[in-house]
């Protein structure tokens, strides 16, 4: 029989202890002998030490969990309280009796958890609230029956579940990779290391992207920062350039020196980088930024490929191979030993130096770029005087000879000495490898020279004066490449007006 614990009659308390149901027992808080002390872990006393005069009530789990202990005999409807049952009985025209609240001072009751291993089983740790002990028992020792739809978190107590559902999903941060976070700091940390960001910045380099998930608004304003006389170095002159110039000076000097300090220490990987991509800072006003972005984007893309597989060194070796090719592109004219260090034992010292002042411009290397975009870049780039060839510059073909320094790849720079370059085979290319597509044939077939002073065609028949070719024209050109049409014809058909009639020297 369910034990009636309503405080409706003074007889109840004493009857409980005499009840034959054995469901409940009352013991005084002073009886410490039987329940074992909870494992003392030098905890401080829990707050809310119950009133020493209070009655300690121990209910069985069944009683505790019973929701409707009072049942109508007619229709079997259950009620949580006897009062409610009595009121219901009125409806059946059954005799009912509502008890008045007892005028006597109600003795305080505290409840212990029926679970013997629980810390609240001990009378000295009893809880003062029946609802509280019910919830505690359910939470700690009960089955989790309530599940949040959003996040599949489970709860044993319905009110907990309701409270959670209210806030679940209200504050969400979403990473580009699709993971959701409810906390900003986890979101930020994840986002920084997630590949999604790297890929996005790769894309940002290719073309001015619309601002996406960057919280501050993407600062990419492609041509803004760069000084206007030079044709846009590329959209890659990142807007980092713009806020930076004011503080170039202190930074420029600074990084150079430490590199010398540390030169001896870690084993130095041979290809010498300049403008290590680790730095997004560039101290040059014009296209020096390109060098840093070169490596950053290169790393980014190679990082992407790194991440997609999970093995360490083999991928790094491949990334190194990438790097090696592109390294020839922008050797430093300074003596800064920015060493890309593959120290086996420890972390590296990748020197985060700023790109030295506008020493060279290296167009970003996009191994995955379409041929169209590549050709566009080719149009924008001037090959260096000393013949670092265009395609070597693009990294499509490795240069076998030690590449002479690419002083300056600007079209506008007339210091280039193009004349002597003509004797290079093809476009001054070394041994062509099998990268690049039909462009190779194109190049082999012609022997143009570079340099703006040459009135002749550059290798694609795209003159500087054209101000960069249109992509449309390029596409036409490319489609005609497949047939192995020689350059001249292609150029002629392209109709670069300036070049009509000029020789392909």
């Amino acid at each position, binding site marked *: 029989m369910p034990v009636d614990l309503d405080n409706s009659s003074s007889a109840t308390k004493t009857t409980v202890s005499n009840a034959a149901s054995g469901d409940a027992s009352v013991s005084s808080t002073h009886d410490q002998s039987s329940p074992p002390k909870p494992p003392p872990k030098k905890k401080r006393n829990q707050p809310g030490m119950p009133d020493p005069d209070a009655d300690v009530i121990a209910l069985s789990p069944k009683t505790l969990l019973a929701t409707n202990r009072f049942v109508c005999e007619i229709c079997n409807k259950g009620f949580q309280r006897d009062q409610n049952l009595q009121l219901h009985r009125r409806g059946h025209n059954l005799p009912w009796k509502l008890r008045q609240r007892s005028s006597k001072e109600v003795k305080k009751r505290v409840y212990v958890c029926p679970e013997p291993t629980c810390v609240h089983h001990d009378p000295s740790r009893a809880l003062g609230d029946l609802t509280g002990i019910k919830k505690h028992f359910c939470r700690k020792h009960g089955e989790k029956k309530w599940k949040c739809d959003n996040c599949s978190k489970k709860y044993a107590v319905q009110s907990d579940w309701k409270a959670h559902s209210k806030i679940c999903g209200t504050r969400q941060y979403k990473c580009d990779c699709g993971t959701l976070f409810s906390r900003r*700091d986890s979101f930020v940390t994840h986002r920084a290391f997630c590949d999604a960001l790297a890929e996005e910045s790769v894309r940002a380099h290719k073309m001015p992207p619309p601002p996406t998930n960057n919280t501050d608004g993407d600062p990419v304003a492609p041509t803004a920062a760069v000084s206007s006389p030079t044709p846009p170095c590329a959209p890659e002159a990142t807007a980092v350039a713009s806020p930076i110039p004011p503080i170039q000076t202190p930074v420029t000097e600074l990084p150079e020196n430490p590199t010398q300090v540390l030169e001896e220490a870690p084993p130095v990987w041979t290809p010498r980088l300049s403008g290590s991509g680790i730095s997004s800072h560039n101290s040059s006003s014009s296209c020096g930024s390109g060098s840093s972005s070169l490596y950053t984007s290169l790393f980014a893309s190679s990082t992407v490929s790194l991440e997609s597989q999970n093995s360490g060194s083999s991928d790094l070796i491949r990334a190194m191979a990438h790097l090696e090719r592109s390294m020839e592109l922008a050797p430093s004219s300074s003596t800064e030993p920015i060493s890309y260090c593959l120290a086996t034992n420890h972390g590296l010292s990748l020197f985060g130096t700023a790109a030295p002042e506008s020493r060279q411009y290296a167009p970003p290397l996009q191994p995955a770029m379409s041929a169209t975009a590549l050709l566009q870049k080719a149009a924008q780039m001037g090959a260096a005087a000393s013949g670092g060839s265009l395609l070597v510059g693009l990294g499509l073909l490795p240069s076998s000879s030690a590449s002479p320094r690419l002083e300056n790849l600007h079209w506008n720079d007339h210091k280039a000495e193009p004349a002597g370059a003509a004797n290079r085979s093809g476009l001054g290319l070394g041994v062509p490898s099998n990268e690049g597509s039909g462009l190779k044939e194109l190049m082999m077939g012609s022997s143009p020279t570079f340099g703006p002073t040459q009135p002749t065609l550059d290798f694609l028949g795209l003159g500087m004066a054209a101000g960069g070719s249109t992509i449309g024209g390029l596409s036409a050109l490319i489609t005609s490449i497949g047939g192995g049409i020689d350059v001249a014809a292609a150029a002629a058909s392209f109709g670069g007006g300036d070049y009509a009639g000029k020789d392909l020297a």
Partner: protein
Amino acid sequence: MNNSQTHRLWPWPGFPTSSKALGSFGDANCMEQLLVYCANAIENNDATLSHQILWVINNIASPDGDSNQRLTCAFLRALIVRAAMIGTSEIVTAMARAMNYPNLAPQTHRFSVLELANFVDLTPWHRFGFTAANAAILDAVEGYSAIHIVDLSLTHCMQIPTLIDAIATRLDGPPLIKLTVAGLIEDIPPIVDLFSYDEMGLKLVNFARSRNISLVFKVIPCSSSDGFARLIEYLRILQQQQQLLAAHDEALVINCQMTLHCIPDETAINITNSDSPYNSFSSSCPVSSSSSSTSPLSARAMFLKAIRSLNPTTVVLVDEDAYFTTNDLVDRLRSAFNYLWIPYDTVDTFLPRGSKQRQWYEAYIRWKIENVIAHEGFDRVERQEPKGRWAERMREANFRAVAFGEAAATEVKIMLDEHAAGWGSKKAEDNLVLTWKGHNVVFATAWVPA
């Protein structure tokens, strides 16, 4: 050996054998006491006794049991490892083999970068230090246009994105951030599965760029055993050059997250290289009153003095509030037992049993326990000292504490709200402390040159 249930004579006559009786051994106090007996037996080379006790503990502490049992099991394991490495008792090692003790070598997980990011955020253990440090750093670098952060952290730059984010959102224009990371040569967990820091550095640079900040990233390989001497050397040379160039307006922040406890203190055998940059110190520094005037400064003390000599804008020191430096094994064991129950207690709140992350987490704690108990000399890198002792050291090194502001305390509370209910924080005059069920776990302090 009489194996009869009622007349068992082993490990000693009358030893209770029924599971009910053994259950009463499940009390944490009892387990601690048994471990202490065992440690004593091992230290005294009492093979028989240690064998007996190890057997008992093994039977009551299951590696799959409740948090007390798992804690005890980890300590048991550590004691066995210690006996095997240091003790002379072949019986102990033989027994270990006979018991087929699972994986004596701690297999800590090698995290990928994203796994580590996730792992570090499971619990406030690390995130607390990050949040408090970020707040203190932000206060200290206000107004500077260049910030040089020297990061000594075992968590491999996991703090940096939130720090960059915080700096990016401050009002007075994006600064230049130079980040110098101490790349520890030793493999101290959590270990990250990277061939080099390149990948990480690039991602940080990219991330900073996306927040309109230029980041220069550099890693300096160094070792805790000599107090990160190489790092100090690098910083000193850097500073000399900066002075030559009259470089200005750069804030130097030294961010120490749970790493300084790896530096050998006075209780460790103190070997300093003859060409260590610290040697110039011992002669020039006045010996403070609280350190012994006869013994040389420990690497720990020298490191702090060295940083002081760099005149940093601020130093943030976060570490675990525990006392693991006593050379007496039993004391150390007690101390460790009464601190490392905390991670076992917390793990139930945030990781379900059997999940991989839980295994990683517990492996990490086992590594810590093993390091404290079984290793000596430079191998023992878990040399935590209580916050009071660190404060003393900093004051000796001529630093003065800076209180955390209300903003910091609030940030921490907001962060803790996202975690289980047992976590709390308390703010004292010169520190912030993370608590679990009222017990101190991690403390955070901020210092400026005095």
